Structures are given as structure tokens and as C-alpha cells.
């Protein structure tokens, strides 16, 4: 037993605070929008130039001029504002975005994050991830705890090219929740049905109390 993608997203949504401006990455982070708690009002930023991102459009109402950073068709809200890419990243680097929730390929106990390339294999690019981790107030990573081959992705140090150095604050995986603290990672919460022994066995990083 562990959390599935939607349960990871639902747990990550608990990190949101009323009034925050937040950027959600592609993949599991996008699902977080479906679980924003009752009474919490957050404004979602899409780095291609929008604040106040709404849900997917109804069939037949898609607008090619209105997409999110994952190039998905979306809608606007009454509070929506549009702006160009340099303005978008000015607010990101300028620390105006309270939190980014991002996916990861690897994360390390010192807060290093790798999520943009596998040398010689996967060459997609960092998009806005390097700017986000360098600029936003708090970085939460959501990911699977281990690879398809069962190897830990929560490491002592990243093996892949970094997206940011010492930038991650909290990690939410299918097995639980960890914080980056001096000396390593601190276990905050175990996922439903996961034992601490199972969690430790799947974690290469140093766990501290």
C-alpha cells in the first residue's frame, strides 16, 4: 500500500495556504489543482504568461490562444491577468510566487533537485524549472519514491544534471512526506499503509530525527 498519483496530489494540496500565488509543474503537480482544500483560495500562475488559471474548457470551447505551461487548453477566471514571458519570470525570480510544486527525477538530502535531463538519452530541457526553484518562496517536490526498477530516487546526492542546488524544502512521494533539514531528510508523515521500515528501505538519503 502507498499513495497513488491522485493521493500524492491531494496530500500536496494540503501545503497550500489561503491567498497564495502558486506555480504547479507538469504531471502530478497539475493534479494538485483538483484538491485545493475548501476555504483556501490560491491563484495559479502559468509561466507562459497567466495568473488565475481556470479548469479545462468544455468540449467545443477550446481556445488555441489559451493554454497552460503543459500546452493544455485551459480557461480563464474573473481575476485572470495575462502578461508576457519576461514579466512572468520577473515575478518568479522576484520572489512573488509563494510556492512551486514540481516533479523530479531525483532529489537529494541536501535539497538538490534533478528534473530536466538524462545525458545522452532524454533531452527535453529545463523549461521554467530552474527559474522557479531559484526564485519562489518554497519548493515542494512530488514524485515516486523509487524508479520502475525499485531504485531509490531519494538520494544522498543526485547523479543527474541539477535543476537547482539546495532548493527543495519538502518532498512528497507515494511513500510519505519528508523535509530537507540540516544533516539530511526528516520523515514528517508516512503514506497510508506504509511502515517506517518500508520507507527507510526505499530511501537512500540520510534520515535524521
Amino acid at each position, binding site marked *: 500500500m502507498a499513495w497513488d498519483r491522485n493521493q500524492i496530489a491531494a496530500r500536496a494540496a494540503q501545503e497550500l495556504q489561503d491567498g497564495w500565488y502558486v506555480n504547479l509543474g507538469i504531471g502530478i503537480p497539475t493534479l494538485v489543482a483538483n484538491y485545493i482544500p475548501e476555504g483556501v483560495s490560491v491563484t495559479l500562475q502559468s509561466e507562459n504568461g497567466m495568473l488565475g488559471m481556470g479548469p*479545462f474548457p468544455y468540449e467545443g470551447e477550446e*481556445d488555441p490562444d489559451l493554454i497552460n505551461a503543459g500546452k493544455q487548453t485551459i480557461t480563464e477566471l474573473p481575476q485572470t491577468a495575462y502578461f508576457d514571458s519576461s514579466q512572468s519570470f520577473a515575478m518568479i525570480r522576484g520572489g512573488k510566487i509563494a510556492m512551486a510544486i514540481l516533479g523530479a527525477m531525483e532529489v537529494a538530502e541536501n535539497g538538490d533537485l534533478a528534473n530536466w535531463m538524462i545525458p545522452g538519452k532524454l533531452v527535453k530541457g529545463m*523549461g521554467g524549472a530552474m527559474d522557479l526553484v531559484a526564485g519562489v518562496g518554497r519548493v515542494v517536490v512530488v514524485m515516486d519514491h523509487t524508479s520502475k526498477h525499485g531504485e531509490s530516487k531519494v538520494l544522498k546526492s543526485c547523479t543527474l544534471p541539477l535543476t537547482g542546488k539546495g532548493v527543495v524544502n519538502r518532498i512528497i512521494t507515494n511513500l510519505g512526506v519528508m523535509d530537507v533539514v540540516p544533516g539530511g531528510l526528516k520523515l514528517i508523515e508516512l503514506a497510508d499503509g506504509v511502515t517506517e521500515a518500508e520507507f527507510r528501505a526505499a530511501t537512500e538519503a540520510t534520515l535524521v530525527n
Partner: protein
Amino acid sequence: MKKVYPNADAALEGLLFDGMTIASGGFGLCGIPELLIAAIERAGTRNLTIASNNAGVDGFGLGVLLATKQVKKMISSYVGENAEFMRQYLSGELELEFNPQGTLAERLRAGGAGIGGFYTRTGVGTVIADGKDVKLFDGKEYILETGIVADISIVKAWKADPSGNLVFRKTARNFNPPAATAGKICICEVEEIVPLGSLDPDHIHLPGIYVHRLIQGTHEKRIENRTTRKKEA
């Protein structure tokens, strides 16, 4: 001076040369100058360096210039949607300079604003910082990034007036304004050229000083990733 041209081929006449640098607006396939890209394909200009956030998809957007091998180098932040790009890059036929998305946007903005370079936190401690000057501000490391000035920029707006004042629509604005300013000559394609005086001067997104040549045309505006929800009964 008349800025309005009859079509994309005419608007590019006399501006294209092999080995040139082009800044292009657009994010994914949203707000891309699709008519000008098609005209560059027809012109057959080669060894292009193109600064654009993305590289289009196979067969559309900048993907058409990759298919014809007119591109020598891309400066981009994300190229994951293009199989031909990946093939040319991994086989060494195509150069690629990855820029973080915000760094690319600011490099274009800076180039257009006469700023030679700027220091940013983005990329500190990563391969992006390799070989770049590092400076401490308030005890934190920043790296030096340079402005981009392109030979021409190609952009897409929603509406223009004949003086080149531009209005964009929704998220199709994206990289178009900073890319427009980065070109020594900027060519813009729009869906509609409206009469002088019909745009509210307070609602102009990019003033016409940045726009040198203008065309009106019909755009396919292809959707890359169509996502919808069902109406509740």
C-alpha cells in the same frame, strides 16, 4: 514609411541571409509566427541560429525549418515535443543551447533594451553556470547572462494598427513582446490590421516603435494538447 506588406514573402524580402540569427515569439504552438516561418522555409535561408522557447512539432511551427535542415543552432528552454529535433541533436547535426525559460525571456528583453547583460540566481550550481561570471549580491551567488540581439525577430500578435502598435490575445502573448524588441528589424504577423485610431492607446501591449514590417493573414493556430471537461448534466 509604410509598414504594411501584402504577404509574408514580401515582408521578409531583402532581410534574409545564410547564417543569420532570428528571435521568434511563441510558446509551444501558441502565438507562433506561422506565416513568417513558412515564408522562411520557402526562401530556403540556411545555417540559421534561432532563439525561441520551443522548436515546434514535427511538421508545424519551427519544426518545418528543422525538417528542411535550415537550422544550425537553437537557443531554447524546452524541445521535448519534437522527434526530428531530438534525432538531429543526438546525431550532432544540430547545435542546441539550453537556456532556462526566464533567462531566455530576460536575455531577449535585455537585448532589446540596450542591456548588455544581467546577473541572475537562475542556474547557480548547475551546468548552466559553467564558464559564466559569478558575483555575490547580498551574500548570494548570481551568474552573468548576456542580452540577445537578433538580426531579425518574427512575432505574432492578434491585432495591429498600421503604425505597428500591437495587441496580443490571452496566453498567445508569451515570448512575442521580448522577442520583438530583440530584433534589429521586427516583422510581425497579425490576424487583423485595424484602422489608425481604433486601438485604445492605453491598451496597447507593444508600441509600434518596435515593429518595422507588418502583415495580416489567416492562421491555422493548431492546438498541441487538447484537454477538455464534460458538461455536467
